[in-house]
């Protein structure tokens, strides 16, 4: 593959990852998922930087991505500590739990009434309870040689 289509492909992938992270950080309300989305945006930027580095044939983009990795590690450490502290204060990982910090002109987030979880109940493997003798099937026991 020549260098320009490769550059375009990689830039497209980077753009898609960045947009996915953007949508995630805008919509999701779980603080941890929001940080995962931020990391997704960083991934998109990293792919773009490496693509440009490859296209220009110099090391600048790759070196920058190494520093992105460093800053992302620091950011994750600090942010997760803050998330834990926030969870200890409110008992939930909800970003909207801190909406009293919003501008006074903005309307508050009102939780809609959620329907009860209508997903199918989990199907567990059926086991006979411990300590209870399983029902013996006479036909089967006759055909067994020995157990």
């Amino acid at each position, binding site marked *: *593959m*020549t260098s320009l*289509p*490769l550059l*375009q*492909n990689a830039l497209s*992938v980077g*753009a*898609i*990852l*960045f*947009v*996915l992270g*953007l949508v*995630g950080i*805008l*919509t*999701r309300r*779980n603080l*941890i*998922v929001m940080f*995962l*989305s931020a*990391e*997704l945006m960083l*991934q998109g930027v*990293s*792919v773009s930087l490496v*693509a440009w*580095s*490859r296209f*220009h*044939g*110099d*090391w600048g983009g*790759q*070196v920058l991505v*190494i520093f992105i*990795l460093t800053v992302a590690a*620091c950011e*994750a*450490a*600090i942010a997760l500590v803050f*998330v*834990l*502290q926030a*969870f*200890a*204060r409110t*008992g*939930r*990982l909800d970003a*909207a739990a801190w*909406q*009293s910090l919003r501008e006074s002109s903005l309307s508050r987030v*009102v*939780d809609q009434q959620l*329907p009860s*979880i*209508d997903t199918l109940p989990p199907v567990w493997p059926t086991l006979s309870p411990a300590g209870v003798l399983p029902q013996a099937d006479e036909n089967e026991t006759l055909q067994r040689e020995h157990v």
Partner: protein
Amino acid sequence: MNPALFSPGLLLASAVTLTALGLWLLLPRGSENRSAWWLGWLLGAVALAGFVCAGKRLGGIGEEAVFLTVSLVAIVSGTATIVSRSPVYSAIWFALSLAGVAGVLLVLGAQFLGVATIVVYAGAILVMFLFVLMLAQPSGLASYDRVSSEPLLSAVTGAVLLGLLTLSIGRLSVGPATPEPLALASAASDSPATSSHAAAIDSLVKNHVARLGGELFGRHLLAVEAAGVLLLVALIGSIAIVSRGEPDVVDHSLDLQPLTATKQSQGGRR
């Protein structure tokens, strides 16, 4: 067939619309509907194909099997990261997305970064996320994981941004015979033509790690020192924050229901 029907602009527009619609269908909106879920994935797949076709029409986005595979892994699992209802599944999907990104980096010739992404992100950062989830996640699906704030507006915003980016990326080759970025680069370094360019790309691949290390600790030594200080500060800072002891006594009865009418009375305080 009518060629106007398949003009790249129209294709791009419909791909943008389908992306927005698919993302909106996939994002949690309070009501779980399996058919909407599958329809969202289907629309997303069609939109992705539309983006590929539109990019091809716009400027010949080529294909290579390995690159397509790893980028598809990265994109699909990235989508699953942001639409999963359970944050644990989000984290696991994010790990798969990291694997895809590492593959893309390897295809691009950044061998060290591909491995470092796996080691640092999937090995360290993601495990940290999972630990925090274990510490903080309430059992079962929380209500705030089942709804999202402004899913339609955000999906439209993201899709439009993606369309604009695809447009500009596709335009990269439509320009003059020598692509502009290359012209800029060669003008900046006063090096002629593409033969030196190919040689430069070769030099990126040969002796990769050694040369990357030389660049990192040669030209960027000061930045490396700054990054080290940053890591140290982050380490000390996170320990200091977390070891300040238990937070003040929390009135959970107040905080656990901040979204209901009981807090309306406090509006006057602000």
